[in-house]
């Protein structure tokens, strides 16, 4: 049976191929010492209609507002009332409580899958708050915070995760692949980056119709390698489409470190050659994320075209419930991340300006956890993944087309036969 085909075993290669390295692997200690963290006052906030080439330093810098003293400083400090900040804090804590519960429910077999956004809650929450409700969101899979900002029902999000009878997308997709037209939140795809150029098209239509709504999209650091990202930048710049194109650089794409996509530069720098301003921002600094997003939205509404924002952050947990990060990165790498945790940082700021206390924080945390527990019970009352109730089985054949064509009518009658 063994094939005796001769193989030229004399060939020996001395590979000179360059292969990037990771920030850490289980056998090496995490080391983020190369990351330069400038002070909030080191940056500058240019006019929103600046040319990309004139502000390219922002693509290589790091916009920050919250300093190491937990106080606000520098030109990017946004005009946000303590109430607004507290609202942001509450949303981020709510997202985290939701994520923790859903993750546990997946582990208990109630959900088929889940993805947390732990450590990067400021991205979706601060950006969502800096936008208008009529701005259209084309998210990736870790921006669930946008739905919290837009007051989406938590129970309904859970029902989507359960694919039950109250799931607004009728059991069609895996957990977290939300869609909510009411909240201008585009249907999530499992295929990466596809939404990026779609956002540009949406923005082009907004401009064509003479409206001032902006389209906003997100991809991760790994996904920047996808051709659709380039398409979005080229089309967005060509037509000066009112879009904000975000890269959430959370350092890891499942097991692949950002070094396999960043090519030794920043992600933000990638847009400059296409005349789109690139801005790199401390993604764990709620105020900085808010300020940069506000700048980009104003630029878009004034006809300045796209902004490419790199949100510099860290994926504290695994990619999803399907992977164990300890298998491919240093243990507790998250604790070495130099930009801290977005919830902790905003909390410390609010305490520093005497608008918040540790006791209030603890009380809010328990309140949110209790609310999530209550919501989960209610969601389950609308059906579980395994036992239903679900939508009727024949609903599977609906929405393939607007009107069901004869071949699907025929198949829908065969099901269960």
């Amino acid at each position: 049976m063994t094939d005796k085909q001769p193989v030229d075993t004399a060939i020996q290669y001395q590979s000179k191929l360059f292969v990037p390295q990771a920030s850490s692997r289980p056998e090496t200690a995490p080391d983020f010492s190369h990351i330069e963290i400038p002070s909030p006052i080191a940056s500058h906030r240019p006019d929103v209609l600046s040319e990309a080439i004139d502000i390219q330093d922002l693509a290589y810098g790091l916009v920050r507002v919250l300093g190491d003293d937990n106080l606000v400083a520098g030109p990017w400090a946004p005009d946000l009332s303590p109430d607004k900040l507290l609202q942001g804090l509450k949303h981020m804590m709510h997202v985290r409580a939701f994520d923790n519960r859903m993750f546990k429910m997946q582990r208990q077999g109630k959900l088929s899958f889940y993805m947390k956004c732990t450590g990067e809650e400021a991205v979706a929450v601060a950006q969502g708050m800096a936008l208008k409700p009529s701005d259209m969101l084309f998210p990736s899979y870790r921006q669930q915070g946008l739905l919290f900002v837009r007051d989406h029902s938590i129970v309904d999000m859970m029902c989507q995760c359960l694919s039950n009878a109250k799931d607004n997308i009728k059991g069609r997709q895996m957990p977290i692949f939300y869609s909510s037209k009411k909240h201008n939140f585009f249907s999530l795809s499992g295929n990466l980056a596809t939404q990026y150029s779609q956002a540009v098209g949406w923005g082009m239509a907004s401009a064509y119709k003479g409206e001032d709504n902006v389209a906003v999209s997100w991809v991760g650091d790994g996904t920047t390698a996808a051709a659709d990202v380039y398409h979005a930048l080229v089309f967005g710049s060509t037509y000066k489409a009112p879009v904000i194109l975000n890269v959430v650089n959370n350092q890891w794409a499942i097991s692949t470190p950002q070094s396999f996509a960043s090519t030794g530069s920043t992600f933000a720098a990638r847009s400059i050659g296409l005349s789109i301003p690139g801005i790199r921002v401390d993604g764990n600094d709620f105020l900085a994320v808010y300020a940069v997003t506000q700048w980009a939205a104003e630029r878009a509404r004034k006809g300045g075209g796209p902004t490419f924002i790199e949100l510099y952050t860290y994926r504290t947990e695994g990619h999803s419930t399907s992977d164990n990060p300890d298998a491919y990165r240093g243990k507790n790498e998250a604790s070495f991340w130099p930009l801290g945790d977005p919830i902790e940082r905003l909390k410390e700021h609010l305490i520093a300006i005497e608008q918040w206390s540790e006791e209030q924080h603890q009380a809010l945390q328990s309140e949110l956890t209790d609310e999530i527990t209550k919501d989960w019970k209610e969601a389950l009352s609308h059906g579980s993944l395994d036992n239903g109730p679900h939508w009727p089985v024949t609903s599977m054949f609906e929405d393939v087309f607007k009107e069901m064509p004869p071949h699907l009518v025929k198949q829908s009658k065969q099901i269960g036969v």
Partner: protein
Amino acid sequence: MAKMNMIQALNSAMDIAMDRDPNVLVMGEDVGYFGGVFRCTDGLYKKYGSHRALDMPIAEGGIMGVAIGMGVNGLRPIVEIQFSDYIYPAIDQIVSELARLRHRSGGEYFAPVVIRAPCGGGIRGGQTHSQSPEGIFTHACGLKTVMPSNPYEAKGLLIAAIEDDDPVIFFEPKRIYNGPFDGDHNKAASPWSAHPLGDVPQEHYKIEIGKANVLEPGSAVTVITYGNMVHVAQAAIKNSGIDAELIDLRTLIPLDIDTIKASVQKTGRCVVVHEATLTSGFGAEILSQVQEECFWHLKAPIERVTGWDTPYPHAFEWEYFPSQERITQAMLRTLESN
């Protein structure tokens, strides 16, 4: 011989090929350090280094393009597409380039690339982690198309694919990575170690691409299938007691029409089963060829049991996944017909 599941058998095939030929390398998303999300390339990074178990940026079109370039320059890349559902950004490189390179260059150039892609459902993966897109690739001229149904054949076919000078797209039904699955999800999972085809030689061997396997001899009806559905059909035959002949195609292109012909001319009845959607699925091609080759022997219309013509659902996995019951009913209909 060793007990291997399909993941281990595929891993063994790649290990052997890499050991024998320094031109062989594995590449794709998460395949290097991590060893692949399904663990198929586990250990290859450690054994052969980061240059030969090559992690790659998330861009299937880019991965495929560089694989072709490497192939043209003498290497034999084994590309892993993490889920076959993610293959579409690479379609241009696969269909317009990889499949046609030899032909368009008058035989001057070729790229011996193997594309491995986990496919199929039954894992609650919804529409973006459950597809069976083999019919798209059988329709592109120039790609050998393989889908094994067990560890023993997976290894032999993968080694044959790696050593083949033509591009091969190799679909791996992920539901049966760890054990055969007869379609009854309420039953306890059974491992490959309890199945005779989980006995896999540790050494090099090949199974010829383009040869089907008659898995169960029978005389009343021919059931033609491949991949996941081999086990569902086998259980349906066993549980119904129908004297069916079961053919596991193993390779779709080139199609072993001789084996099909011999069987259908004998039984006069035919049921084709696949998990992919019905319309324009590979079953349609099988039906056409059976009709061309066996028309005067047929005693009943040929039946197809397939996935429905809808995107793969999350909630209704088991209503979608072709069941034993549907296969049995199809066999009975052909038997009742005269």
